């Protein structure tokens, strides 16, 4: 009964607020996402050479993504838990299917053509992997023991390696970190984490051996971009010039010269942050980072308020993965991380990734808005 009164007390008086809550929407998170989407339009207009077509297509995708988010927010988190393993199994099966069909076809294949629409299983697995690990750990005593750690590691590595084989290093990284996030939040002991870190360090030479030529090039280019100014290093050099020339206040909206003059490749997709930094300067960048931090903070808050282990683990992992997204993309664009194909979340043009991303926020909203009213 006590919670009832508290809820009423905090209820915003507006009708809109009332509708939003009925829709199972978390208002602070929604506002954050809304601003990010708005920024996406503003910067895409500039980066996409003021092509309205780009904006329309992005608007269509973002609308779809918001619709997916709101739909998922309606689903009781109990249902997510219940179907975690099945969804994960389907996801892995589809990844294998894509790989097999890719073998038959030619080159990298990430799409599964279902005839009426094309589906990218690696997107789905971004969500189902943390769901699976959270489901696996939720009803077992925590922190996880070495045996559970072993099982969880296999469960994480399976989709990760399948995606890395496609080859899509960026997505593989995100899937791995979403699974690892769950383990971290489950309270995996620091000693075991150190051991894993050491094992990964030992595995690096082996991973190197299995990397594709162009993936190796990217790492090498990252280490020394000036060695290959026409190829991969070109991206990094040009993006540094764009960012650096933006200065503190930036050149103003539509004022970027680097992307305008086609110096900067992929300026609407993976390298959009460089355009943003050039036009809005350090102030804009810090502002954007603060917006991201607010979104992440809200997600972590939702995790902290979650009522069962599954929800806690899933929510916190989703928040963590979102941060990995931001960090890997910006890190790559400003030249502190190698170039892996990860878009700037909520801002970059295109990809189905924005749908998956907002689906994740839908799950977070579902977790937050379906809490049982506990009577203490």
């Amino acid at each position, binding site marked *: 009964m006590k919670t009832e009164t508290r809820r009423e007390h905090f209820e915003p008086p507006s009708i809109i607020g009332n509708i939003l809550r009925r829709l199972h929407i978390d208002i602070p998170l929604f506002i954050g996402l809304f601003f990010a989407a708005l920024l996406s339009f503003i910067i895409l207009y500039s980066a996409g050479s003021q092509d309205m077509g780009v904006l329309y297509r992005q608007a269509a995708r973002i609308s779809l993504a918001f619709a997916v988010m709101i739909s998922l927010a309606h689903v009781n988190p109990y249902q997510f838990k219940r179907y975690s393993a099945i969804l994960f199994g389907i996801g892995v099966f589809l990844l294998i299917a894509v790989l097999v069909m890719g073998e038959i076809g030619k080159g990298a294949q990430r799409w599964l053509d279902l005839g009426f629409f094309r589906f990218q299983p690696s997107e789905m697995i971004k969500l189902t992997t943390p769901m699976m690990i959270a489901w696996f750990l939720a009803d077992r005593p925590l922190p996880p023991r070495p045996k559970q750690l072993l099982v969880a590691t296999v469960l994480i590595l399976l989709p990760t390696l399948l995606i890395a084989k496609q080859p899509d290093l960026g997505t593989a990284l995100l899937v791995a970190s979403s699974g690892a996030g769950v383990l971290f939040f489950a309270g995996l002991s620091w000693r075991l984490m150190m051991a894993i870190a050491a094992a990964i360090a030992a595995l690096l030479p082996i991973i190197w051996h299995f990397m594709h030529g162009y993936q190796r090039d990217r790492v090498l280019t990252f280490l020394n971009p000036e060695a290959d100014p*026409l*190829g991969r290093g070109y991206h990094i050099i040009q993006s540094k*010039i764009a*960012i650096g020339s933006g200065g503190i206040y930036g050149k103003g909206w539509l004022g970027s010269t680097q992307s305008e003059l086609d110096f900067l490749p992929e300026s609407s997709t993976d390298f959009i942050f460089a355009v943003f930094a050039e036009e809005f300067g350090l102030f804009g960048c810090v502002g954007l980072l603060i917006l991201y931090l607010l979104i992440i903070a809200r997600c972590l808050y939702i995790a*902290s308020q979650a009522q069962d*282990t599954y929800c806690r683990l899933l929510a916190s992992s989703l928040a963590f993965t979102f941060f990995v997204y931001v960090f890997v993309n*910006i*890190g790559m664009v400003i030249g502190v991380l190698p170039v892996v194909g990860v878009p700037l979340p909520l801002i970059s043009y295109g990809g189905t990734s924005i749908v998956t991303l907002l689906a994740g926020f839908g799950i977070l909203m579902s977790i937050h808005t379906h809490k049982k009213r506990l009577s203490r």
Partner: protein
Amino acid sequence: MKDNSAEQRVFHRRLLVAFAVISLLTSALVIRLVYLQIFGHERYASMAKENSVKIVPLVPTRGIIYDRNGKILADNTPSYSLELTPEQISNMPDTLHRLQKLLNISDDKIDSFQKQYKRQKRFTSTALLLNMNDEELARFAVVRPYFPGVDIRTHMVRHYPYSELTAHVIGYVGRINENEMKELPIAEYRGSTHIGKLGIESSYESQLHGKAGYAEIETNVQARSLNTLNETNPETGASLYLSLDIDLQKIAYDALEGYNGAVVAIDIKTGGVLVFSSRPGFDPNPFVVGITNDAYKALESSQDQPLYNRALRGLYPPGSTVKPFVALAGLQYDAINAEQKLFCPGYYQLPGVTHKFRDWRKGGHGSVNMNDAIAQSCDVYFYRLASMLGIDRMYDFLKQFGFGEKTGIDLVGEKSGLLPSRQWKEAQKKQQWFPGDTLITGIGQGFHQVTPLQLARATATLANKGQIVTPFLVDRIVTPNATLPGPQTHKGEIPLKAENIDAIVAGMVDVVHSERGTAKSIGKNIPYQIAGKTGTAQVFNIKQNAKYNEHDIDFKLRDHALFISFAPAHDPQIAVAVIVENGGHGGSVAAPIAGKIIKQYLKNRQ
């Protein structure tokens, strides 16, 4: 046991740790941004603004392709285009109008130029005319001072001087499309517009292309070039010397005149391909600059299929050209000896079956030994021999000569043909292997399908006494620093008894040199002997007891004429396979083509 409150405590601690780490890493990003945007600002701003350095690719020159005697098969020739720079032209409509009158430019070209140049920056030039001829160049040169902002630009265009003669060997280059762009190494192809699409141009793309260089050019804020700071020269692509002899290639192509077909000749000692001809060919040059839709459709829909590489991808029944190999199988497996005579009444019947397998000669050949059977191409002899061998042994033996598999030549798109076997038929046709299938396989009809290249290779391997010959086209790759060998490989040896080979070669010599030989027309007045075998491949099945008269039936339904040969018979140097579609008899149409090539080739050598 689950301890919920302890778990929650751990969880909340972890949340705090995570948030701390996230904040820390975000701060690291901010520090880096501060470094770039405050401390690096001046440097980067000057790079971006006043004189930003633009890296301009310098496109490498594509390697030249030569034949074995150093004649150029593919090179780069200058092409001139008329380009207009809008910002230097005060009155564009007037300039266009005057140019149109001067050079007779069509309205279409003016329209497409107007659409195009508006999309470009004002200081970049757009082409109005491509591939200007000498007259246009001369006319413009005279009045050039009256056209500020209009310039002649030169760029190199791939050129194939032998046109349709080499189209199916050399292939052509064409514009890089989007899919290809994704696969290509960005650094080496920045600035490149063309890529090998077919033939040698495609198989040796990486060698021919060379390596891009780049110039660092100072540009101002509008990206106008000011000054070149630094240049790394491009590396010219490697030149290729082929084993192909363009003069022989021309003889072969000309000899095929009036027919569709293919000729492949191989240097037996090395495996180098001397002739690789598929007729009709097509002119590859329009593909380089971009063939018009109509022209392409005309090629694609032509009944003669000029785009179809018959030598590499054409599938034909080998007909009687398979007989020397079947005969050799008979000797190797001791199923028969060379002197043993079999009676040929003009047809053959399997026990208990009424179907008559007919001989091409209605009255039959009478009693023939192996030599006669090869020289006169007696079908009944080979029906019986095939029956004695059985399909399994025939399959095992023929497979060794490369039938049913790719030869491994350095061209993409090769077909593997089909060598039928019991297992193949059961798997593919869902039908058991019948004894009749064995008989017709023995005379090269039925399911067996070969490419002209395969046939030439098998012949070369036979001439080489079982040393397997692997055909190749590129003899050597010459870079500025080194000469590298082409892909010559040796693929082992088929164990064959010398006396068995001699018996087969004797039969094949009689095909050309005996009175009753099926190709005796080509064996006269030469100081050496040619070993050969004619073949006729049925395009359609003649009904039992129906009469076949080649003059009565439609040309397209006439039999394919085939001929395989090598020479000199006892010191073999060249092997030739000829297939003439709808040519009728191998002896009358296909053999003379091989004869011309052999005579020309050996004349040069003796």
